[in-house]
């Protein structure tokens, strides 16, 4: 299956949120990485069909998704960044409602509801009203409803935002297990989310696709751009004024600086392997958000 996004643009009241975004995705987990306001959610909404593009098209195996209508929505599972739940519904009733909307028959709906509740570890609270759910539980309900119809295209927008570290790890594990034979596209501004699960990354900045590829491939492009420099406390300000500092760490009475620069910044700088945090800073000019559980994805 191919999900083709062709020249998709979106303008909101004169502001260009997306500009000629073009990419082709196949089965696997793909991460949309970029800072807040980059256009990630806008793109995902357009792919999900809840927002119309100003121009451009989204195709599945060459067929326009708007033309496909119900047939496209049958393939789709969507977890938005912000969503509500029906507070007086129990978890089970809510999922049965979504199952009804997704066109599942009675028997299949019942089976699938049990399955997805087990998958997101909410089986023991299936008869509890959603008003009593914590933030993490609500987020899991969100992913559960997205999985009901066994979607071939799963779109997940900032799935771990607002979750505590334990919930975040659990969520990543769920996402990683979902890859299989489906296209999973999720957006995040948290590096560690990408490190764990994504097989390729789409870098989004100011509505443009500025980079696309496997983490290793993107990082290899940064080879020779990341340096380590040891300096005194007094020299830190001088380096901060002249270079992009990815990281700072104190070792005894010296400061180890991690600098992003095209050329060797100072004679005693040592080239080091780039990480995804370095890539983020290099591309977006701001520090990446990490939850401290990152794996060293350096080459």
């Amino acid at each position: 299956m191919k999900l083709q996004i062709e020249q998709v643009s979106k303008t909101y009241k004169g502001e260009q949120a997306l500009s000629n975004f073009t990419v082709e995705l196949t089965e696997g987990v793909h991460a949309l990485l970029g800072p807040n306001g980059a256009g990630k959610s806008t793109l995902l909404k357009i792919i999900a069909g809840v927002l119309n593009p100003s121009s451009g098209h989204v195709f599945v195996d060459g067929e326009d998704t708007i033309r496909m209508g119900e047939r496209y929505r049958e393939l789709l599972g969507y977890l938005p960044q912000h969503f509500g739940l029906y507070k007086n519904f129990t978890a089970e009733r809510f999922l049965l409602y979504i199952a009804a909307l997704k066109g599942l028959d009675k028997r299949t709906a019942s089976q699938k509801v049990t399955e997805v509740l087990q998958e997101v570890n909410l089986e023991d609270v299936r008869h509890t009203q959603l008003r009593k759910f914590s933030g993490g539980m609500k987020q899991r309900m969100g992913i559960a409803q997205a999985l009901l119809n066994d979607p071939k295209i799963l779109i997940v927008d900032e799935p771990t935002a607002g979750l505590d570290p334990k919930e975040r790890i659990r969520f990543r594990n769920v996402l990683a297990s979902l890859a299989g034979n489906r296209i999973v596209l999720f957006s995040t501004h948290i590096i560690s989310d990408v490190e764990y699960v994504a097989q390729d990354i789409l870098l989004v900045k100011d509505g443009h696709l500025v980079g696309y590829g496997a983490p290793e491939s993107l990082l290899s492009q940064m080879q020779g751009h990341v340096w380590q420099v040891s300096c005194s406390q007094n020299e830190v300000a001088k380096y901060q004024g002249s270079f992009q500092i990815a990281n700072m760490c104190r070792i005894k009475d010296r400061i180890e600086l991690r600098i992003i620069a095209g050329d060797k910044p100072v004679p005693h700088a040592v080239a080091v392997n780039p990480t995804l945090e370095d890539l983020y800073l290099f591309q977006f000019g701001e520090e990446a958000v990490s939850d401290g559980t990152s794996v060293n994805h350096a080459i």
Partner: protein
Amino acid sequence: MEHLSITRFELYKLFSRKSIWILLTIMLVGLFLPLQLLIASTNHPPVYQATPPTKQQLQQAKTDLPIVQQKLQNSHVGSLVYWDLWHEYQRDQAIASSYSGTAVATRMYSLQESMAHLKASGQMGFAYRADKLEYDMLKNLPFIGGGMYNGGGAMMIDFFKTYGFIIYAAMILIGLAPIFSEEYASGTDNFLLTAKRGKRQLVSAKVKAALLYSVVIGFIIEVWNLGLNALLFGTQGLNYPIQSIPLYRAPFHLTIQQYILVAIAIFLFGGVSFSCIVLLVSALSRMTLISFVISTGIFVLPALISKVVHQFWSGTLLNFSYTGLLQVSRLYYHFLAYNVLGHPVLYPILVFPIFIVISLIVTRLVYVAYGRHQVV
């Protein structure tokens, strides 16, 4: 392969809201019941002469009237003797006015003259046809006695135009104003719009649930109305003509009982029609408060305008408004026919096809409005 019913879930969403039941209870039990109890406790209903009086009865009534009136003036107001005399006075007056000729006869005479004049001048169009229609309807009326009927049946009918239409409209607004707008405001529309049956089939389910809701609520309101008023004021007089209650000039040959059945049907029809426009406003509004305010405005504005602007068009506006329809008695106050291609069509008949067409168009627009909705 049996699909799960989306309508069932939509009905659950509507009827599981505690606010609906709390509001209904407050209005029916907290407000309407005490008011009716108060009326019942102080009720000294006027008398209606249901059958043509004999000459002896008439003679006796004419003789007794001035005597009873004198006794009334001399008795202590509010005492038991006073109320007995008052009842006697009402009865004698009802008998006396039954014989003296009714407003119907006067009107019929006036119509005959009008028709003769129009015929003589060769004007046989709408005006002539309307006069003839009214004349034929009045000719067909049964005996209309003097006095007034104010028993259980009258109270049941009075409910529609006093509290009934307000309670019903309030319940429709509270229940249905958020039906779409709440989905938009809360973010559940994300799930709905991306589901296979989350567009056209969902709208159909919401429409069905909304119409069922309005019928069920209307039915509950009417059961309460009929039951309570029957209990407090009795069921005597249900076979009296509608001209025995404040529908004196109505040219329709209906008993109180028949009118109540017709009124319930119109009441429910009005509720269903109003629900359709509330649905459309909800589908177009991103906030429930806006949906509520606009729908309330649609309901209230025609009545406000007709109170401020005393022109023909403002009366017509109210006649063909949801308020007018839900009040019901407006349709039957007096003879009113509209010119449809030169032919008089009675207002209570014309109102139905108009509202059916409006409701169908409005319902179609609900599909369009929701289909165009985007999550921004």
